[in-house]
């Protein structure tokens, strides 16, 4: 797997190759090289499975992190290919033509984060939500408590405790794990 990571660095200018476990590596790529790198991994290396595709919202940096987890099912190895895209003009290349199930991942990400994948089918097709009028809910700046207070009224009389203080005064400062 080291050779493949080195290949990625030389071919696609990847950086920050590191081993999370000996069967799981992680590597960062610039936004325009990420999908070519994933394509190269699928076509020319045993990493043929798209195992997972996820997005992290780094609102402090104003960036989205898109992560493809490609897996070599026979060698039992995985590589996390990370890239950062701009949070304002959130568009990312699509891998829907490489793996059919990526359509579903990209549809959900498009709905939950508002990231656009040009060329991917079912962009803008509601997947989970129905009649959703607010901003994409999985963004960090979407305040779910405020939304709930507006839309789903609470039953009066329900108490909320801050666990830091409440568990402390109930179970002692150690917390309840050590009894």
């Amino acid at each position, binding site marked *: 797997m080291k050779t493949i990571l080195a290949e990625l660095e030389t071919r696609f200018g990847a950086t920050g190759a590191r081993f999370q476990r000996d069967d799981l590596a992680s590597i960062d790529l610039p936004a325009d090289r990420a999908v070519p790198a994933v394509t190269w991994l699928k076509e020319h290396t045993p990493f043929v499975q798209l195992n*997972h595709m*996820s997005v992290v919202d780094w609102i402090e940096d104003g960036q989205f992190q898109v992560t493809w987890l490609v897996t070599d*099912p026979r060698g039992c190895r995985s590589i996390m290919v990370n890239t950062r895209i701009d949070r304002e003009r959130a568009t990312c290349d699509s891998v829907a033509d490489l793996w059919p*199930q990526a359509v*579903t991942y990209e549809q959900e990400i498009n709905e939950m984060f508002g990231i656009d994948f040009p060329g991917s089918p079912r962009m803008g097709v509601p*997947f*989970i939500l129905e009649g959703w009028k607010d901003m994409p809910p999985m963004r960090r700046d979407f305040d779910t408590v405020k939304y709930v207070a507006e839309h789903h009224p609470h039953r009066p009389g329900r108490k909320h405790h801050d666990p830091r203080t409440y568990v402390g005064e109930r179970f002692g400062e150690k*917390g309840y*794990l050590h009894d």
Partner: protein
Amino acid sequence: MTRRITESREVQLWFGPQHPGITGNMAMQVFLEGDTITRGKTHVGYLHRAFEKLMERRTFIQSFPIVCRICVPEPDTNEYLLAAAVEEIAGIEIPEKAKWIRTLVLEMSRLASMLMVLGGQAGTMGNGVPPQWMIALRDYILDRFEELTGGRVYHMYIVYGGVRRDLPPGFAERMEENLRRIEEYLPYVDDVIFDNAVFRKRTIGVGVVPEEWVDEMGLSGPIVRAMGIPRDTRKDWPYLAYPELDFDVALAEGSDIYARALVRRKEIQQSIDLIRQILAKMPQDGPYCAKLPNMMTWKVPPGQTYVRAEATRGEMGYFVVTDGSDRIRRVHVRGPSYIHGVSLLERMLPGTNIADLSALMVSLQVCPPEIER
């Protein structure tokens, strides 16, 4: 609807969300010609609870009551995966006994879930007897869960650094007694399900998944094993105490509904044997939970990882990102049903007989809560 019937050759049929043939709460919009489906689409989202959003608002220890609700029949895999991911990032070593107890809990939950789905497989074809038996057998395991963790369905038993409490005295004997009771009934189940002429007629050669879809779509679990491909996360990505247990991957040929049911039947026996092995080899003394900082103010260093485990339905994975604060930055659940239930099912719908649809759905073991989380 009447207009559609009279005007066009197709009948539009909403298979769910309110439909007894549906596992969980999802919908399939299918178009029929006669009894054959020409095209269809799956609709999910009826169970969306925004777990991943809620976990961004919870402290690490508060996340456990949430993750175990992600898959209802088999909650412990989720607990283990969250714990394992955070432990890997935080660099916590769990004691030896905790490993074995976690393995025991995972196998128990696999057994319970496997019993339920095998009974449901026969139930989708109108045979009402096996589901009744199997779910009654599943209750034995739920009793042991209740004794061990205090909860019948949701356990919140696996925590960071190990498990919440030790095995109660005499647990192994009661477990063994229950396993014997279950093994008494399994031959009858074999007679009613696998030696049943009508069941074989209905299932053999129905719902075949082509082998080239495995790498193309990232399939896993009994669907792959039913093709004769020995692919099992417990063997390929060994975790917990599985490398020290001896078991071989349950395989079947044909990749149809019957083969998948056969794989599940073999894995029931496999889980029973594994539970026996675990209870025999488990270290009797030693700590069951590592020493941990105060959970209320625990901060985990930044990191990003992906852990996987073998659920009943296939490979389940957690993608966890932390940013050094006392809350999870991002957790993304990769449920096997996410691929089996949406992409694979939609791809298999055309040409399926409407009579086989719910049987196909159960044999893919679609678990809607983990699709939409």
